[in-house]
């Protein structure tokens, strides 16, 4: 039996947001290490990348329909 489409979207959106949070943690740690080593060159790029990821995560978390429609237990 195939899963309903809504449930697949829910899982994909959740997995994506989770992945974004992990990437952000890694990015912040890398940037902090670089700043403590006196290298500030990657700050603008890292900020833009982080901002894009955050905006996508915010849109998904607030706007994706049926995010709570998981498979019934």
């Amino acid at each position, binding site marked *: 039996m195939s899963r309903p489409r809504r449930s697949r979207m*829910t899982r994909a*959106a*959740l997995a994506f*947001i*989770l992945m*974004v*949070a992990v990437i*952000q*943690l890694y*990015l*912040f740690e890398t*940037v*902090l*290490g670089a*700043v*403590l*080593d*006196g*290298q*500030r060159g990657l*700050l*603008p790029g*890292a*900020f833009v990348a*982080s*901002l894009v*990821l*955050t905006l996508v*995560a*915010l849109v*998904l*978390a*607030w706007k*994706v329909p049926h*995010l*709570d429609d*998981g498979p019934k237990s």
Partner: protein
Amino acid sequence: MFRWKRNFPVDLADESSLSRREFARFLALVSAGFTAGIGYLWGRKKPFDGAPDSSGLERAVDLGPAAALHPGESKLFTFRDADDRCIVLRTQMGDLRAYRQTCTHLGCAVRYDGQRLECPCHHGFFECGQGFPVQGPPTRPLSGINLELRADGRLWAVGDLPKPGDPRRLEEPA
């Protein structure tokens, strides 16, 4: 049933349940927090304690006659401001090196034991050639100070050395 449960009839399962959307929103806000953190690092101009200064400002601090420092000896000085504590030392091989005293683990002050730079807080050790950590919790090298030996025999601290491995670190210190 316990009496306290009768007095406080709260269904714990309901209390702690979190919908998927709430969880997703929480993660998105955490992500926004990291973005704000990176923005703060970008906007902050003052270097962190123990971090090299990348503002490009020229400074020079007189450290006294180089000959006064014998192999295995060290001397403390401040460089950027009164809180920027540094140490200049002469290695057993006779080379002069200077570093920020701030340990790259949790920021205690390192000291020279005649062989290596030692952090007393968690027994971290750094070699004194380039400031690499060799033992204990620190994983990043110490921040180095560029030294200049002038014609009159006096030693000057003249700037920040890029961290070892950084392509900007083209020259070895004095």
